[in-house]
């Protein structure tokens, strides 16, 4: 049974994390927020943005603030799955040779998969099991990943040559997808100031322990969600499917496949975490609204017409949000 003090302590801890991250990262509040949400709801985050926007910095700051083990994997076309998950190697001990498992970079609490779309699908698929089941299977052995575990992947949307777009199954396993936007003028000035003076940027110290994060996860799971909101989330998911009774005409026109049930789970879990971070004790419609786009934007597959007409997924989802009646 969670006590009221535990709830308040967890909320307080994460407010501290947010504050620490804000000391290092200029702007990008939505990205920080989404990262924390994914951490709280056992999810993974896909960050998309042009190079140099601080994607890696955000992830490293997060890992540092959390006091968790961090590993970074730079995805290249020649990267092999074993390079991620690890492999069995022959070791010799006291004259006796035997196979022993050498853990890959996936065995960390916070994993940064940088430019994940540059690796081959086979390598990309190496992350599937780790992201979903938090386990890694090598040979006949299955190894559990230590909790808390979170994968934060980045991808560059402009350099598409020589890349391998993530397969749908892979993309669907990311709880949220955030677009890392370009900083505005004030933010840019702030970034320049922080990185060029006082011996450059220093990562913050750890504020919470892994155990506290897990406690916070338990608190988030207990946050109540109204039945009618759950129904509303289900209607939202249905509305992304063409020919659904809830779908707006734009979905019928441009969408080939709508969001999966995993989208609903992501939205509900994300909304709970959002409410937690906001210091609330229940999920409201505003929490749903705040997590709707990150939870849905990477789960729609456009048809040819949608692709050829360059339909923006955010606009389409905006229509979905407007078309589905709350009550």
């Amino acid at each position, binding site marked *: 049974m969670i006590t009221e003090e535990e709830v308040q302590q967890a909320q307080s801890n994460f407010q501290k994390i947010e504050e620490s991250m804000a000391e290092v990262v200029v702007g990008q509040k939505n990205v920080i927020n989404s990262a924390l949400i994914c951490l709280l709801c056992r999810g993974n985050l896909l960050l998309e943005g042009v190079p140099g926007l601080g994607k890696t910095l955000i992830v490293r700051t997060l890992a540092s603030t959390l006091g968790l083990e961090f590993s970074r994997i730079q995805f290249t076309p020649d990267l092999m799955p074993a390079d991620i998950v690890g492999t069995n190697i022959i070791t010799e001990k006291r004259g006796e040779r035997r196979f022993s498992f050498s853990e890959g970079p996936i065995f960390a609490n916070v994993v940064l998969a940088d430019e994940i779309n540059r690796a081959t699908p086979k390598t990309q698929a190496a992350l599937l099991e780790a992201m979903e089941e938090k386990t890694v299977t090598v040979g006949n052995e299955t190894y559990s990943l230590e909790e808390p575990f979170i994968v934060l992947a980045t991808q560059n949307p402009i350099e598409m040559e020589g890349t391998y777009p993530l397969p749908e199954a892979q993309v669907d396993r990311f709880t949220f997808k955030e677009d890392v936007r370009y900083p505005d003028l004030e933010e840019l000035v702030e970034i320049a100031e922080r990185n060029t003076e006082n011996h450059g940027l220093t990562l913050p110290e750890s504020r919470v322990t892994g155990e506290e994060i897990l406690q916070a996860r338990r608190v988030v799971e207990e946050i109540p969600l109204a039945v009618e909101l759950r129904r509303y989330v289900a209607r939202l998911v249905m509305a992304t499917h063409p020919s659904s009774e809830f779908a707006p005409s734009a979905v019928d026109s441009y969408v080939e496949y709508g969001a999966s049930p995993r989208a609903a789970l992501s939205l509900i879990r994300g909304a709970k975490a959002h409410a937690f971070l906001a210091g609330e004790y*229940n999920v409201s419609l505003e929490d749903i609204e705040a997590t709707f786009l990150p939870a849905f934007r990477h789960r729609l597959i456009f048809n040819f017409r949608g692709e050829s007409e360059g339909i923006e997924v955010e606009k389409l989802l905006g229509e979905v949000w407007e078309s589905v009646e709350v*009550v």
Partner: protein
Amino acid sequence: MKENRERNVKNIFARVKKRVRHRAGLRRGGIVLSLLSLILLIYLAGLRLGFLPLTLTPRLRLISLVLLTLPLAFYALAYLSALFKSVDLNRATFVLDRRLGTRELTSSLLSLEEEGKDGPFLSKIRERLSRLEIDLRKAFPLRKTDLIANFGGLLTLLLVLALAFLPASLPGGRSLNSPSLLGGRGKRAGEGRTDPARGEELKGEEKSPEEEEAGLNDRERLLRKVRELREGEGVVSREGDDLLRYLEEKMGGEGLVSNSSDLSDLEEMKREEERGLAAIDDQKLRSLLEELMESEDPGRSSELVERADRRLSQMKKEGTGSAAQSGEEGDREGTEPETGESKRSEARTGEGEGDRVAEEDGESGGKSEGQEEEKGSGAGGEENGDETLSERRESSSVKEGERREGETASSPYEERPEEKSPSSQSEPRTEEGRDQDESADFDRSGGDKPGEGSAVEEKGSSQAAPPDERSLTDTSPEFSLQRLPGKTASDPSFREYLTLGVPIETGESEVEDQGERKVNVDYQKLRSIFTWKSLSEEEEKIVRRYFDGLTRSAGQ
């Protein structure tokens, strides 16, 4: 204050349920009330405007009262059904949260309570809710459409109430307040009568034309005309007061008495009726009034009222005071046969005048109408001798023609213009003629031919019916009118007919003199039912034969 709010949070779901049900009840009730009220309004308006047949609603006010309770009863039912319907509390609380901006606190609280979870979130949510002002009226406001439906339905109902109870004339000169429409058949005749003093009051009242236009129905106007005529020019005799009183009573309580318990009232009314009608000097007017009183058909009543009205106007125009005066004299001298005889001869001298009237009246009545006019204006004295006529018949010393005229005047069957066949319209109407029109069973050898008033006398005497074919209206010299009580035919099928809606008293009449008239009244009642039931001619003949049998037995 805080305690109140905490208490409100504790029973918030019960309050939400109550409010939602109340709203649903108002909605359902409003729809039911407005719809039923509208239907009722259309129905009553249809009756008022004459789009619906009045015969369908012989007890309009009673039916209105019953119908008025229907929307209210259904409103209550609809409201109660909503009170017992299940409420989707999850949805209702969610709506409440959205309307009041409570950040889904109540719906989340409901979720927690339904799941039976007890923890920090439950207490925190309750605490937060208790700090908020939860106004359920704001969260679940009554919809404008529901309010309009409720109040609109209520207003419509009030309008219906006004339509049902405000006095207004209906087609055919009937009033919605008339006892026949209010269930007057079951009402005692005495209840419908006005105070005799009211006649005097009415006499003194001079209503303005506006009042006349606003509220008076045809019969009331007719009554006024009769009174004016009597006061101004003396058209009716000294006994006209009786007539006036009788007419007023009839108008105040014109419902037909059918209940056997009302028989004594009926008989009393009949006595008054005969007395009142006998006071009218004008034959035409008298027959019209008599038929008017007995008529149950609204259309027919309207027509009769118009005709009587026209006749009154005509009499007023002509200033027939001298004839009326002589009528009064005849009335006074009526006990002596010679006086009656002399009045008849006076009446014959007025034939010329009667002809003139007949010409004026030709637009509606044709030649036969003219014949009646002739009799009415010129033969006022004849009728004053009616009472002695039967005695004279018994002595068989009077000429046939005179007897013929006297019999015609005293017969309860008067000319009914609506029953004229095309052939009879071109002929002077007598009782025989009317019977010929009505049924072949009533055919007789006697009858009038076209001609002047004096010719009636001659023809009537020359074509007297044989004794074995006599009917009530037979005027042959041998005919002796005996008023016997009516009785039913032996054929059981007749009895079946007569018990179909209208009770016919088959026992012996206590008042011997009225047996014949009673048979006629009963037959008139049945005739009014024919229009409802649309009986075939064959069936009508059976009924008529039955009544003929009654009158035949009365005549013999």
